[in-house]
């Protein structure tokens, strides 16, 4: 048996959770211990091969422009990728696997669990996208969410779909930052004592509301100027960030929102919630964590933009590709996601290696590995992705969205770790808390 085990989350057990909450998956991730079936590094290598195989097969079937369904249009595929991420987060982080019973989670074969929970995820995904956004929101509220209504107004079918999917995916991007923020920053307080599904529904509604608020203040104006003339009576035009960001594009917000999302997950994984975990007062810790993550994210947001200016010269308003401010902002978000992939692998499959030094030393080493691996992944992606993913060459091509394959890979990691207990490379043993 391997000395190196892998645990899916550094989320501490929730003190004070009612015993009834254990009927479902409350604290399942924290109490589960995944142990490699073979000596290290074989479980990690097997897992990487397994992930890569599932990634490539599913990419070919669903996304690849040379493949079967060709959803990388790009926004259709991008939307599903984003929503898979948020639905998986909801199922596990917000709802604690509800309605699956703890006994079922512990005793069912991981492959079967993966299949069943993935199927449920897909059903939720389709109901949300096609029911809530395309039908309800699109037909009763905001026209741009409806493909049919937008087509009726004269937009071609292709762009009607692309615009609707863009709006949908932006909502998911915001939610994928805010929804996990609640458990990660506030330990689900003040609703941590509620049973499931009450707690999940409450946090879902609260974070959905906050996501809606941020969506309306950021991406709604972006959507409103997609149409001619600008829809100035229903949205602020020109968007309020125009002069500061050097672009009217909502990519300015994609950048900082992605920075917030990635910093949050890095904090939750390889940082093991340090340094904010040093704050003993729960309420203060919650606010410090949330706003501290936002502050770090904004540093990355501006810092990576500056690095692009150093590399390629100042951006030029109205120019395209490498020199376009809107692409530079988007690319900040893309850069960040490249760092998230190795960070999650270190946590999910390497038990947050190393663990043998002090907390700070471990933290520094993990960050160092993540930075080096993220840069390597960035280079490999742009040098080779057009060969094996069917995407276009060149990093700033308008249809080049590395966030699609990287988040697709992250989705597979989440499903593999959260739904399937890292099977087949690992097996689950009970860990005492």
């Amino acid at each position, binding site marked *: 048996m391997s000395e190196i085990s892998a645990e899916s989350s550094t989320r501490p057990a929730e003190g004070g959770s009612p015993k009834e909450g254990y009927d479902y998956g409350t604290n399942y991730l924290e109490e589960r211990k995944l142990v490699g079936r073979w000596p290290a590094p074989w479980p990690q290598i097997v897992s990487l091969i397994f992930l890569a195989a599932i990634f490539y097969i599913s990419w070919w079937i669903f996304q690849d422009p*040379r493949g079967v369904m060709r959803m990388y249009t790009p926004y259709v595929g991008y939307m599903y990728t984003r929503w898979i991420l948020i639905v998986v987060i909801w199922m596990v982080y917000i709802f604690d696997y509800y309605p699956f019973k703890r006994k079922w989670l512990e005793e069912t074969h991981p492959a079967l669990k993966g299949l069943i929970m993935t199927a449920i995820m897909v059903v939720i995904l389709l109901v949300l996208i096609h029911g809530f956004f395309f039908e309800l929101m699109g037909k009763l509220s905001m026209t741009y969410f409806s493909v049919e209504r937008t087509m009726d107004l004269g937009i071609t079918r292709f762009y009607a779909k692309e615009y609707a999917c863009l709006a949908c995916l932006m909502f998911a991007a915001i939610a994928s930052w805010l929804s996990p923020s609640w458990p990660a920053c506030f330990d689900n307080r003040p609703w941590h004592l509620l049973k499931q599904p009450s707690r999940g529904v409450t946090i879902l509604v609260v974070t959905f509301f906050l996501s809606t608020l941020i969506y309306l203040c950021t991406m709604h104006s972006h959507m409103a100027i997609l149409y001619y003339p600008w829809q100035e009576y229903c949205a602020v035009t020109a968007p309020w960030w125009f002069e500061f960001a050097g672009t009217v594009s909502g990519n300015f917000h994609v950048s900082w929102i992605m920075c917030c999302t990635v910093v949050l997950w890095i904090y939750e994984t390889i940082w093991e919630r340090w340094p904010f975990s040093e704050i003993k007062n729960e309420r203060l810790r919650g606010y410090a964590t949330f706003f501290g993550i936002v502050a770090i994210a904004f540093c990355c947001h*501006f810092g990576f933009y500056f690095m692009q200016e150093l590399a390629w010269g100042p951006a030029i308003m109205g120019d395209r590709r490498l020199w376009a401010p809107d692409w530079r902002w988007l690319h900040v978000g893309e850069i960040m996601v490249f760092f998230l992939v190795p960070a999650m692998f270190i946590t999910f499959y390497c038990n947050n290696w190393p663990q043998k030094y002090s907390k700070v030393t471990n933290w520094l080493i993990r960050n160092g590995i993540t930075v080096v691996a993220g840069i390597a992944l960035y280079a490999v992606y742009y040098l080779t992705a057009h060969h094996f993913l069917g995407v276009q060459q060149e990093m700033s091509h308008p249809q080049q969205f590395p966030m699609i394959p990287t988040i697709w890979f992250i989705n597979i990691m989440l499903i593999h770790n959260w739904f399937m207990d890292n099977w087949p490379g690992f097996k689950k043993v009970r860990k005492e808390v």
Partner: protein
Amino acid sequence: MSDKYTVSRRRFLEALGAGTAFGFLGSMGAFSYTPLRNRFLPDKPKGTTDIGEVKKLTITCISETSWFDNDILMNDMDDMGGLLVNQWTYPWPPEGKPNNPRGDLHPENAGGYAALLDIELLNGDHKFILLDTGWEHGWTDQRFKECGIDKMLKNNEIDCLFISHEHFDHFWGLPVTMKYKPDIDMYIGGDFYPEGKQFIKDSGFKGKLYEAKSKTRHLFEIKDKNGKTIPGVAGYYFPVAIICRVFGEQSIFVNVKDAGIVQVTGCCHQGILNFAEAAYTTLKGGDRPYGVYGGLHISPFEDWDPKYDDLVFGLGKYGFQKIGCNHCTGVLCARKFVEAGYPVVQGTARFRSKTTDFLGNGDVIEFP
């Protein structure tokens, strides 16, 4: 010293490491988006390459209607899987092309892009460049005849064929040009795919082929039919990725005496400002942009993106005096340009061009 003030080497290094990490993050935020950062950014050098001057440039729009119905074209693309699908796999016309020899998908919707550049040199001589060669063979041939291109080709009056990029609507009409002048000299980008090169062979090309350098931005000379450099004219290759799995676009600079630089493009996938910046940093006199002709690839399918509004805002400071846009510029974009007060030259909406908002088929523009 008291023990309580003692710091171990390990603790010191840990604090140093963590402090450096957070200090780096903090400085990224505090410094990098302030005016202070400008001191690290390089100055933009003016270009020094002298390409000479011409007296006058006259461009005839042979065809700017690459397709006649946006919905049909976009639905074809949608059905095939979006904007990144390899164009050579489409069953669009012409029949017999490499990869997918079918050519029966909406041939009635296919048009093409082509333009004739009439360059009057300072000594009064004229040089002619055929920019692109259309798409659907029937339509291309019809427009060639209506503009007299067929006769000019037969009479060896045209110095060269300049293919801006490999896209179907600019390149797949090559057999029509070959029908009249198979030994014409031809300029292509440096990153044509194998299907494109096979298509050139299959089209019966027998002339001299000038291929730009692969994956490299560069200026290059354009020669007349006698192999002499045309003064005042230069090509520029932009290694940019383009939809439908095409790579690279080349465009033309013409330096018009007492006016400035005219930028002539097929689709300008590199971006009109990128093109202008290339003139600024490469050409002597490149800081005097005068005019534009061609597709600017902004809203080719009458789609929109907020970044295109950035262009509408940003174009003004370049001071173009004559904008002869059409084709993939999009009618919507042309209207926004006019609303912003830019000097867009109106068209006459003849020969199946649908709008007077920009130059159409059969229209002529002169610089100056």
